[in-house]
């Protein structure tokens, strides 16, 4: 059984079909890419998977379970985490608290236990901080733990978004243009990082990316969208050689 299946998903905004009849599956532990020109509907696909929008038509299952009726926070809790194309950190909170938000949903301590803060609370809290420090250490950001998120440099902000998503312990991680705004060295590091995440956390990753070097370099399978429709799917080499893809990108017929 596939981890995530989109079955004939269509999303319309008024008269505009942002995504049309998309059928696609993503496997456990896979590293896939979604590419396509600007406005092709890539981010919209992420938004519909994570429940920000409901599909106009079609269904989505995750681990065999229909997730269309679920609210965004419930979808996060069944194991789908994401980052955003336009970074969405909790700017007024510290790096460490940005990550701590991830634990609020499995926190056994409810409202009143969190006020009293006795008994198991302290042990739980220590456990969270250990996990946070471990994650930050892994991504070389431990020294920034008490920094306000909004004061981080661009690269660290992108990295924190990924760390924060990982703290949610997802089975599937959606990355929306993580390399945007990075220089070539940072991009190299990011590629290493994404592979590392997939291997250490053993999760599936779907990546939206405009930088072909990055996508072709790390994705095992790529889906190409154009005007909301899937025009190609396959390995990086297959996709690169596909005339429809070349046409979509270069805007001229190849035949």
């Amino acid at each position, binding site marked *: 059984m596939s981890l995530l299946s989109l079955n004939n998903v269509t999303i319309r905004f008024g008269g505009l079909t942002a995504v049309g009849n998309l059928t696609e599956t993503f496997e456990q532990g896979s590293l896939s890419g979604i590419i396509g020109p600007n406005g092709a509907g890539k981010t919209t696909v992420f938004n519909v998977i*994570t*429940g*920000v929008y409901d599909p106009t038509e079609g269904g989505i299952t995750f681990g065999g379970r229909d997730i269309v009726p679920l*609210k*965004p*926070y419930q979808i*996060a*809790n069944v194991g789908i*985490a*994401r980052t*955003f194309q336009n970074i*969405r*950190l*909790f*700017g*007024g*909170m*510290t790096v460490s*608290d940005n990550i*701590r*938000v*991830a*634990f*609020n*949903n499995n*926190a056994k*301590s*409810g*409202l009143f*236990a*969190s*006020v*009293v*803060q*006795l008994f198991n*609370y*302290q042990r*739980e*809290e220590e456990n*969270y901080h250990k996990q946070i420090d471990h994650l930050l250490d892994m991504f070389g950001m431990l020294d920034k733990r*008490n*920094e*306000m998120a909004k004061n981080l440099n661009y690269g660290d902000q992108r990295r924190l978004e990924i760390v*924060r*998503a990982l703290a*949610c312990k997802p089975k599937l991680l959606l990355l929306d243009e993580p390399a945007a705004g990075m220089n070539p060295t940072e991009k190299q590091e990011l590629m290493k990082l994404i592979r590392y995440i997939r291997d250490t956390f053993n999760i599936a990753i779907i990546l939206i990316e405009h930088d072909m070097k990055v996508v072709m370099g790390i994705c095992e399978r790529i889906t190409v969208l154009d005007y909301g429709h899937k025009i190609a799917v396959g390995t990086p080499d297959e996709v690169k050689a596909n005339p429809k893809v070349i046409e979509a990108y270069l805007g001229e017929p190849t035949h």
Partner: protein
Amino acid sequence: MNKVARPYLFLLLGIIIAFGLSAWADGINPYDQRIVMSIGINMILAASLNLINGFTGQFSLGHAGFMSIGAYGAAIFTTMIAPGMLGEVAGTGMQDVALFMGLLFGGIISALIGVLVGIPSLRLKGDYLAIVTLGFGEIIRVIIQNIPSLGGSLGIANIPRYTTFFWVFFIVAIVVFFIQQLTKSTYGQGFLAVRDDEIAAEAMGVNTTRYKVEAFVIGAFFAGVAGGLYGHYNELIRPADFDFLKSVEIIVMVILGGMGSTYGVLFAAALLTYVPEFLRGFELFGVKFDSFRMSIYSLILIILMLTRPQGLFGGINFKKLMKVGRKSVVGNQ
């Protein structure tokens, strides 16, 4: 262990201060007493509104409405329900019990109405939420005004004066403890996440609706308690005491203190309660400030907002400041 004990020591300190204040303030003249009492009640109102507006980022303009529900609820309890339950309590030790139960009664009713109002209206954002909560406050006022058994616009008079300095500042200490602990906890990070970015919060599994309603209900509860304290000090409550301007007054304290900074908000509550009273008797070069004290009050607000738009205490990373302080003491290792 230190980390566990420290907030409790602060709470204890707060309670000791409440004792100290009540010992001191019992001896001062009634006019000054009233100011100290108002400061305490406004601290409760501002700190609790800060959970909604400052920490959770939901702009509510209905706090005076919740205060009035608590005030009427508590007054009804002590004047009508308590005598049946506890017998004659005035002047006996039982009056504190009656007050405590009355405050709880008023607070709970206020919280329940907070749920009813919160669930539908917290779907709205920003200006829309402000307008709806403003409308709620006014509706409550008009409803009370039109219920003859609640005294209409004349209100309820002859409420027994059970509120003491100790009660007021004891509850200030409790509110501060409650909100500080909650917003520092892992669970409490959800409130801050909702404030900073709702979409990102949902994407991380935060049930944003639940957090918003919870903040609203906790805020409503404490506003209700503050209302009960007010009624049992003032001995008279009228719908006009809880109008739109009262809500604005509390909002200004929150904004001036710095959204999300509990101590800043307490300070602003004290300052903004004291300054108009201080100006009342202030004289400089033979000019009496009494007649234009509200203009000066407004001027101070404008200057403060221009120079510190984030509030007096807002936007300060105390954790980092303390670290830097400690480092400079220890020297660079």
